[in-house]
C-alpha cells in the first residue's frame, strides 16, 4: 500500500517549496514531485521600464542571492548596449561576489543544512578533551575547539536543554537513525555553528564596504560601479581585505575541515550517497580575478562522464511548461519564451501526517500541472547546476586550482571522485568551492590595487538610442549554480526579460517526456527510516540550497494583461 508524504512548507530555505513523495510498504520512495507554491511575476513587471532600472528590479528576485540578480540585470543591459565596463568596475563586482559566496556557503551549511547532519542534543554527552583532540584529525590548526571553548559550548547547551528550551534547535529529528556523527563531532560542529553566526556578519560588512548595504546592495550602475570614493580610499580597501581574511580563516579552519569530518562519518550512510539526481552537469564561467583570468570555466558533462567536457552552446537552452502552471507548454529559447499563468491548483487527496495517520490534504495534481517553476532543458535534457556541477566540470577540464582542491579533499576523505555524485558530494563541493574562493579571491583585490595606480575609471559612458533595438544577456554563476538573464530593449524601454536561474534547473517539474529535475530524481529509490520523520528527504533537498523566489518567474512576450486571466479559486 503506497503512502503519500507532503512536506509543505519545506523550511530552512528561501521561498515557498512543497515536496511530495510516495513510498511503498518498505518505505522506499517510488515517486517524487517538487513544486513552488508562490508566483510574483517580476519579469512581467520589468517590462516597459527604463533599462537602467532593470538591475534594481531583478535584484528583488531574491534577498539571499542578493547580489547575483542585481549584477545579472545590470550586465544583461550592458551586453545589449555593447558596453564594456572599466576593469576597476569588473574587479569590484568580483570582490562583492566573493563576499556573497563566502557568506552564502557557510551560512547554508551551519544555519540551514547542518542540522540535518548534526544531532545537537548528542553533543551533551561528548567528552570535551576527546573532542578537542578529534578536531586535529581534520586540520592542523582547528578553529574554536580548544577544550575550554568546547566546555563552554557544552555548558551553554546544557542550560538550554535543562530548561526544556532548544531555541533555534527545537523540533528537529534528534535521535534519527541516520545521524552519523559521534557526540564529540557534534560538539565540534556546534561550536562552529555559533562562530558562524558571528563571522557571517563580518563578511556581509565586507560586501557593504563597496555595496552600501547587505542585503540588496546599491552601488552597481549600467556601465560600472558608483563606489569610486571607497575604491580610492586605502583605509576602506584595507577594511575589505581584513574582513575577507578573517572569514577565509574560518572557512579554512572550521567549515572545510567539518566537511572532511562529515564525509568520513557519513561515508557509509546510504541515504546521502548514490542519489546524484540528474547526472548531466552544467556550469558557467565565473570570478574574473584579473584582466584575463577567471577562477572557474564553463562546460557541460553528460551522463556523469568526466572524460568528456563540452563547451556550452547558449542556443541550446530552452524552457517549457508542460507540467507548470502556465498556458503555453512548448519549449522555447529564453529570448522567445512565452509564459501566461494558468493556475489549475491543488486537488483533494490524502497523505500521512506527522503522527502517522492518513488525513485529508490538498495534494499536487500529479497528472497535470503542479508547480510555478518551469522546466529548463539543454538540448532537451535536464541539467544539474550548482557547486557540484561547477567543481566536476572544472575538475574534468583540468582547471589547475580545482584539480588541486578536489584531489586534496579526496585524499583527506579517502573517497573516490565518483562519491562526489551524491547528497554528501553536493554539500562537500560547496565547501570546496568556498575554499577556492577564500584562497584565491584576493587575486582580484591585488589586480584592482595594481590597476587603480594608473587608472581611476569606474564607469563607461553610453547612450540608449530609442530608434534602435537591442538584445543581450548575462551568463554566469550564482552560489546555487548557472544563472542567465536575457533581455530585449526597444523604443528605449525593456520589451522582454527572462531569467533562467539555478533553482529552476534543479527544482524543475517533469517535462513533456515525463523527465523530472534533479530534486525529484535524487529522491527516487531512497529508503526512509521513519515516514513520520522524512529527514532523508529534507536533507537531500537542502543539499541543493533551494532558492525558490529565484526559481519562479514569468515573461509574456505578447503584452497581454496578465491580471485578466481567470483562475479557478475553488481548486
Amino acid at each position, binding site marked *: 500500500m503506497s503512502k503519500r508524504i507532503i512536506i509543505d512548507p519545506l523550511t530552512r530555505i528561501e521561498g515557498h517549496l512543497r515536496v511530495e513523495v510516495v513510498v511503498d510498504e518498505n518505505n522506499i520512495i517510488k515517486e517524487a514531485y517538487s513544486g513552488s507554491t508562490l508566483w510574483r511575476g517580476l519579469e512581467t513587471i520589468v517590462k516597459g521600464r527604463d533599462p537602467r532600472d532593470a538591475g*534594481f528590479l531583478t535584484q528583488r528576485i531574491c534577498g*539571499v542571492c542578493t547580489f547575483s540578480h542585481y549584477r545579472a540585470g545590470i550586465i544583461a543591459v550592458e551586453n545589449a548596449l555593447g558596453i564594456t565596463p572599466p576593469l576597476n568596475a569588473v574587479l569590484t563586482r568580483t570582490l562583492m561576489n566573493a563576499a556573497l559566496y563566502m557568506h552564502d556557503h557557510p551560512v547554508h551549511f551551519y544555519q540551514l543544512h547542518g542540522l540535518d547532519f548534526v544531532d545537537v542534543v548528542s553533543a551533551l554527552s561528548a567528552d570535551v578533551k576527546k573532542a578537542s583532540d578529534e578536531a586535529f584529525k581534520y586540520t592542523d590548526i582547528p578553529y574554536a575547539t580548544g577544550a575550554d571553548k568546547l566546555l563552554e559550548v557544552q555548558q551553554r547547551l546544557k542550560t538550554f536543554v535543562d530548561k526544556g528550551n532548544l531555541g533555534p534547535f527545537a523540533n528537529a529529528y534528534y535521535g534519527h537513525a541516520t545521524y552519523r556523527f559521534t557526540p564529540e563531532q557534534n560538539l565540534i560542529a556546534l561550536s562552529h555553528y555559533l562562530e558562524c553566526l558571528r563571522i557571517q556578519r563580518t563578511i556581509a560588512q565586507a560586501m557593504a564596504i563597496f555595496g*552600501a548595504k547587505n542585503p540588496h546592495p546599491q552601488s552597481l550602475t549600467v556601465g560600472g560601479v558608483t563606489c569610486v570614493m571607497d575604491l580610492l580610499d586605502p583605509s576602506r580597501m584595507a577594511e575589505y581585505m581584513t574582513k575577507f581574511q578573517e572569514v577565509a580563516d574560518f572557512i579554512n579552519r572550521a567549515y572545510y575541515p567539518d566537511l572532511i569530518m562529515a564525509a568520513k562519518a557519513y561515508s557509509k550512510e546510504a541515504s546521502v550517497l548514490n542519489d546524484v539526481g540528474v547526472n548531466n552537469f552544467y556550469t558557467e564561467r565565473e570570478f574574473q580575478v584579473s584582466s584575463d583570468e577567471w577562477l572557474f570555466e564553463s562546460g557541460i558533462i553528460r551522463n556523469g562522464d568526466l572524460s568528456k567536457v563540452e563547451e556550452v552552446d547558449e542556443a541550446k537552452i530552452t524552457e517549457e511548461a508542460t507540467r507548470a502552471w502556465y498556458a503555453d507548454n512548448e519549449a522555447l529559447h529564453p529570448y522567445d519564451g512565452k509564459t501566461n499563468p494558468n493556475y489549475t491548483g*491543488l486537488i483533494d487527496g490524502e497523505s500521512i501526517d506527522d503522527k502517522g495517520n492518513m488525513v485529508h490534504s490538498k495534494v499536487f495534481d500529479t497528472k497535470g500541472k503542479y508547480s510555478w517553476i518551469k522546466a529548463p532543458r539543454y538540448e532537451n535534457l535536464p541539467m544539474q547546476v550548482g557547486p557540484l556541477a561547477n567543481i566536476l566540470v572544472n575538475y574534468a577540464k583540468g582547471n589547475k586550482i580545482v584539480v588541486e582542491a578536489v584531489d586534496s579533499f579526496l585524499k583527506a576523505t579517502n573517497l573516490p571522485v565518483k562519491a562526489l555524485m551524491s547528497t554528501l558530494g553536493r554539500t562537500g563541493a560547496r565547501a570546496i568551492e568556498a575554499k577556492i574562493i577564500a584562497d584565491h579571491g584576493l587575486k582580484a583585490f591585488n589586480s584592482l590595487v595594481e590597476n587603480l595606480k594608473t587608472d581611476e575609471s569606474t*564607469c563607461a559612458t553610453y547612450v540608449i538610442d530609442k530608434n534602435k533595438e537591442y538584445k543581450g544577456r548575462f551568463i554566469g554563476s550564482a552560489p546555487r549554480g548557472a544563472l542567465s538573464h536575457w533581455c530585449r530593449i526597444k523604443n528605449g524601454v525593456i520589451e522582454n526579460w527572462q531569467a533562467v536561474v539555478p533553482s529552476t534547473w534543479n527544482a524543475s517539474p517533469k517535462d513533456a517526456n515525463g523527465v523530472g529535475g534533479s530534486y525529484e530524481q535524487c529522491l527516487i529509490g531512497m529508503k526512509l527510516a521513519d515516514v513520520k520523520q522524512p529527514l532523508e528527504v529534507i536533507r537531500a533537498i537542502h543539499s541543493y540550497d533551494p532558492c525558490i523566489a529565484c526559481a519562479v518567474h514569468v515573461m509574456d512576450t505578447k503584452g497581454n494583461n496578465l491580471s485578466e486571466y481567470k483562475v479557478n479559486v475553488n481548486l
Partner: protein
Amino acid sequence: MSDLDIFNRRLDALEKLPLLKNEISISKALEQSGFSRRDFMKWASAMTAFLALPASFTPVVARAAELSDRLPVIWLHMAECTGCSESLLRTDAPTIDSLIFDHISLEYHETIMNAAGWQAEHNLEAAMEKYKGRYILMVEGGIPTGNTEHFLTIGPHGKTGKQIAQQACDNALAIFAIGTCSAFGGIQAARPNPSNSVGLSKVTNKTVINVPGCPPSEKNIIGNVIHYILYQTLPALDAYNRPKWAYALRIHDLCERRGRFDAGEFVQQFGDEGAKKGYCLYKVGCKGPYTFNNCSKERFNQHTSWPVQAGHGCIGCSEPDFWDTMGPFEEVMAGRLFDTVYGLGADNISDKIGIGVLCVTGVAVAAHAVIASLEKNKD
C-alpha cells in the same frame, strides 16, 4: 506622573505576565550567548538614543528588552524575497537585536525554524491558539488577492497566504508590516501587478504599523517593538502609518552630502571628478529629498555604509509605490514631481510646498553652479 513612572508601571505589569512556557528569560539567554551586562547596557543606551528618549531612560529600555520574552512573535512569509528576514537575522546575528527574536520567543519563522511540513503547520496553529490576543505579528511580503489569491498557498492544507495572514491578524496583540512589500505591496504590486498583491493593511481591519524599506534596517524593526512595550500604545504614525520616530525626517535632511547640495556641487555622471570628491547625487537621480527614513543617520550593517556613501543615489524604497513613481532611478524627479503619491493625508500641504521649494532650490542651485562654472571657464 512622569514618562519614566508611566513606563515603569507598564513594565511592572508586563513582568507579572508569566514567562512563555519552556522559554528562558532574556537575561539568561544573553548571559549564555556570551553577552556581558555591560554589552547589554551599551546596546540599551544606543537604542534609547535611537528612540529619541533622554539618556536617563536607558535602564527602562534595558528592562523593556528583558521583558520582551513575555511577548511571543509570529513571523509570516508572504510574496517576498526574504530580504527583510535577512536584514534582521542574517546581517546582525547574533547581536542582541536578533537574539530577541531569534532565540527567545519566535514561534514561527520559515527561514530558520527546524520544523517542516505538518509540524510547521501545527506550530503555527498552536502558537495562534495558545497566545491568542498576546502575540506580536510580523509579516514580510505582499499578499496576492482577488482571483489570483491562490498564487500563494502554504502548508499541507493548501491555505492561501491571505487566509493565513487574516487569521493571524485577528488574534494579534500588535501587527507590524515588515518591509515595503508588506507595508505597501512592494515589487510584486508594481505595474501591472500580475498577482494583485497588496499590503497587509488592505486585508485586515486592524491597525497595521508599517515598517517599510527594501529591506528596512534591523534597528527600525527592533525599535518598534521596544517602543510598543514602553508605551503600550502604537507610536505616532504618519499618513502612511509609519512610526514618526523613525520615518519623520527625509534622507536629505541628515545626508552627509547635504553641504554639497547647498553649495551647488553635483555629480553630473557616475565616475566623474565630482563623484570622486563626494559631490551631491541629486542630478544623477537621488530620491533622498522625497524619501522619509533614517538611513542617512543609521546606515546599514553596523554603520558600515549606505547607498549615498557608496556613491549611488537613494531610490526611495520606503515610499509607497516607489517602483512606479520614483523611476527611472538615475534621473532627477524635477518635472514629474507632482504626479507622485505625495501629499495624501495630514502632511499634504507642507510636503508639497517643501518639495516644491526644494526642487526649485535644487534646480536653481544647479543652474547657478553651471552658470558659475561657465563663467569661470570664460575667465
